[in-house]
């Protein structure tokens, strides 16, 4: 909750953060969360494992882990896989 006159700025700021985020990671996580309560444990675990592997191929996964190791801010591009990927 924010003060009334800060609503638009706060919403814009939140949207801006998401616009610079690892979109495919968030998209897959969102799908997992939305499936979660409809799925049993075994099904939820399988979906998660497959989603993790999907995202492992993304540029942003490599960039995020590397940036963390190098203690810098990551530069996410959203959805793409590295050009070197088959």
């Amino acid at each position, binding site marked *: 909750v924010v003060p009334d006159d800060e609503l638009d700025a706060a919403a814009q700021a*939140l949207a801006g*953060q*998401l616009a610079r*985020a*690892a979109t495919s*990671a*968030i998209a*897959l*996580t*969102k799908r*997992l*969360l939305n*499936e*979660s*309560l409809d*799925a049993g*444990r075994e099904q*939820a*675990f*399988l*979906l*998660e*494992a*497959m*989603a*993790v*592997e*999907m*995202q*492992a*191929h*993304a540029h*942003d*996964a*490599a*960039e*995020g*882990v*590397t*940036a*963390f*190791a190098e203690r810098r801010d*990551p530069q*996410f591009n959203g959805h793409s896989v590295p050009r070197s*990927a088959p």
Partner: protein
Amino acid sequence: VRFDAWQDPVTHRSGQPVPDWLTCRDTVRELSGALSIDRERLAVTVARFNAGAVVGADPDFARGADRYDRYGGDPANPWPNPCLAPLDHPPFYGMPLQVGAFGTSGGVATDERTRALDAAGEVIGGLFAVGNVSAHPVCAGYPGAGGTLGPALTMGYLAGLSVGPATDGSQAPCQWRGVSDDRGARNKAEDKATQDRVLHEVRDGIARITLNRPEAANALAPEQRNRLIELFEADSQDPAVRVVLLRSTGKHFCSGADLGRIKQLRTEGADHVGVGTDRILTGALRLIAAILDCRKPVVCAVQGVAGGLGLHVALACDLIVAASTARFFEPLALRGLVMDGAGAYLLPRRIGMQRRQGAGVPRRPAARRRRPGLRPGQPGGSRR
């Protein structure tokens, strides 16, 4: 016998053409000349050999002295020792002999990944032993022709797997196909280190499982994760255990899975479709399942950061006691990774969907995220 890859036969019988590698003469004297051997010394040696052969003795090399030697001799030999007969009629043959290790009766002890072990049974880093130089299962015997080749080829292959691909210069683990985890292959030294990093004590009905890797904010490497699984499964069945208390040493409860290992999993998953999925199913998710399936109540004590897998481990427990320093943190989106370790399964069930989705927003500082639901008021309060 003929090895077709070679141009010349490697055996010779009297009367056949003499191959290049064999020198043949009608007298010992001529043979010494052809082989550039001192004539007198060869004559003396042959005389000494012949004197021994007629009584079955070899004063120089003890040929035929044991049953193994005699097994390789000529059973039709009329002289007392099947390995010896006097050299007294032509033709006389000579050839150069080279010494080589054909078999050994033991060698360097290794584990099943061919890593050399010291006297205490601990791995010597970077040293491998295969085939004849190792203490492989039939090293003390010689089961038959080619019996040294199988161990050399097989163990060489295993050594290659053990060394693994050189990627970032770090010690690469084995990539063993068909082995879902490496519990069976762990050696004693690694076991000891793992036990020091996950302490376990059962007293007064309470099993205390203590994460003890404070220098790494108790980040969970696969070895520690596997030990946790074993401990939860054991405590679940142990009648002496009536409650499990999960806690940790140092400033932080658990910062999540070991990041270096995450990077490694990414690399391996990229090489083989499906490997990443299997690793997740047999790794972090098995730990969460082991906690959920534990038949005893599990209490979790959290101080400092509980992040990623650390958060999910805490949420899988039945009750959480949080210190005022506790911060629950979902860092995976910041790293460009999908929320794993059963986060998507647990969070909507434990704290509800919209609060959970807010926690997924990659924003800092993390402390703001602990507010709703995640931390249930004061220490000692119920989480729900």
